[in-house]
């Protein structure tokens, strides 16, 4: 599925990105508040949220003014679709059903677990903005066992559950990544099995759950793609972190180049492959690591391993880096379009850094099964990062046009 990046020399520009100096838009019809802090009360006994950007969102029963404001919604550019804990949903929403009236449910995967629950429909708005997405399929993460329990075919695909507040790390996840739906054409296939439908969507007639094919429209949608305007992507704007462990405030701006406040400006655009991936070059030999990505839903900068970069891991946690002093590093990201951009980032000692709030030097290992880069939220501090959504043709996602720019 991965397409090799074009090497420099085939056109495209290059630039260097050093964090800081970015202009943060604070108000506008397309501007929503974004806060990085230790998260909701329920997470404090677990240590609090680390490098998680929270927003507020309003859900209404479709076509009505029966609405609810949801706080502590974690923004995620590595996924598409809205998922909310059942325990935090106080407005009654209609189930999405198939042609036989069976409720459609989903087994969604995150890196550290699954979410399971029915798909319901909601009108979605964002406080402070005029953006509206109508009748959006969203997932109700069933942390109160109000729906049929997750089948083995769902739970066995993960080592652990995100079907609770601590696992999910927020009251809801707002997936506003590069794709218009969470699954795309693969989940429309009627063949299940090798190279077929991955089986994320289910119906449970009589309490027995089996995977089903769903249409593009039935899948969880990237709500930005459903706005009437400002619907081609979004910008995450966060300042640099002056004191690790504290709160930083920024914005999520909807639309790219649709208003005077959301143009690309000097940002460098890197196009991405059909999985939203790019290539990162690193080290004295500028070794290429394809399959890398930028993801606001990841809470650190995870890259390579000690054998590759020489950075020691922590005695108490071999998945995190613990250099004796903070390292100032740089890497080069390269898009499918041949455009490259050097990025500077810092890695500090994870054992001495604060464990919650905004921590810009938090990082660790990523070498599964090949070494690559996962630029999480620390990448976003001091940079305005644009997430461009794939195109659409005749109602079908095109798997082209998706990009990241900064």
């Amino acid at each position: 599925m991965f397409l090799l990046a074009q090497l420099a020399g085939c056109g495209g520009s290059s630039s260097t990105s050093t964090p800081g100096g970015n202009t943060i838009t604070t108000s506008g019809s397309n501007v929503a508040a974004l806060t990085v802090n230790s998260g909701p009360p329920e997470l404090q006994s677990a240590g609090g949220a680390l490098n998680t950007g929270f927003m507020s969102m309003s859900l209404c029963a479709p076509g009505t003014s029966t609405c609810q404001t949801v706080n502590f919604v974690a923004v995620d550019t590595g996924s598409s679709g809205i998922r909310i804990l059942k325990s935090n949903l106080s407005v009654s929403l209609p189930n999405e059903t198939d042609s036989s009236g069976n409720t459609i449910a989903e087994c969604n995967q995150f890196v550290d677990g699954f979410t399971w629950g029915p798909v319901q429909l909601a009108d979605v708005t964002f406080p402070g903005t005029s953006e509206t997405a109508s009748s959006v399929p969203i997932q109700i993460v069933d942390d109160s066992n109000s729906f049929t329990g997750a089948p083995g075919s769902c739970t066995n695909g993960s080592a652990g559950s995100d079907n609770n507040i601590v696992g999910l790390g927020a009251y809801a996840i707002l997936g506003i990544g590069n794709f218009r739906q969470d699954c795309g054409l693969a989940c429309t296939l009627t063949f299940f099995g090798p190279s077929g439908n991955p089986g994320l969507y289910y119906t449970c007639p009589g309490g027995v759950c089996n995977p089903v094919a769903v249409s593009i429209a039935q899948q969880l949608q990237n709500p930005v793609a459903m706005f009437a305007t400002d619907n081609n992507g979004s910008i995450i704007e966060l300042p640099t972190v002056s004191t690790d462990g504290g709160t930083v405030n920024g914005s999520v701006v909807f639309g790219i180049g649709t208003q005077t406040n959301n143009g690309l400006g000097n940002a460098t655009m890197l196009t991405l492959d059909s999985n939203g991936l790019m290539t990162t070059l690193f080290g004295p030999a500028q070794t290429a690591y394809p399959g890398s990505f930028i993801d606001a839903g990841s809470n650190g900068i995870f890259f390579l391993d000690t054998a590759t970069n020489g950075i020691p891991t922590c005695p108490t946690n071999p998945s995190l880096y613990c250099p004796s002093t903070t390292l100032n590093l740089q890497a080069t990201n390269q898009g499918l379009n041949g455009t490259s951009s050097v990025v500077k980032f810092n890695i500090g000692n994870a054992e001495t850094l604060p464990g919650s709030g905004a921590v810009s030097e938090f990082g660790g290992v990523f070498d599964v099964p090949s070494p690559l880069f996962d630029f999480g939220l620390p990448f976003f501090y001091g940079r305005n990062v644009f997430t461009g959504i794939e195109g659409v043709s005749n109602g079908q996602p095109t798997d082209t046009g998706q990009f990241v720019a900064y």
Partner: protein
Amino acid sequence: MISRSQSRSIALFAVAVVFFSSLPAHASLGGDPSSVQTDAQQLKSSVRVTQSANYTVHEMQVQGATVREYIAGGKVFGITWEGQARPDLQQLLGPYYARVTQAVEQYKAQHPGRHPISIQQPDLVVQMGGHQRAFSGRAYIPNMVPSSVRAEEIR
């Protein structure tokens, strides 16, 4: 999403058999490899066998993912997966599944937030990462890896 390493192949055998069965089944970590014929019988896809100097790799497609089993001394010492969805980890990790789940849950309970998983125990290494549409992972048993094989070859 990942460029594959060049395995030191001596010979490559490709077996393409199609059967109409819907039950995926494959070997578990640390266990005996199922035969290529059994895998092919129970999967609607081919099983690609790669022979290397120190180990054999069985590569197969399962629902949503590509799975590779690394076999030496008659045992599966390592497993990797990559794809749009994770495969059946309970089956792949076998007796180690419960332990991996416990380690993941324990870490989450003390550190809310999403990031790659890395479990390193003397007799078990499990790493998982990625995001929606692009998941990957590796699991191996260090003392079952042939001495001439580097862990990085399990990919």
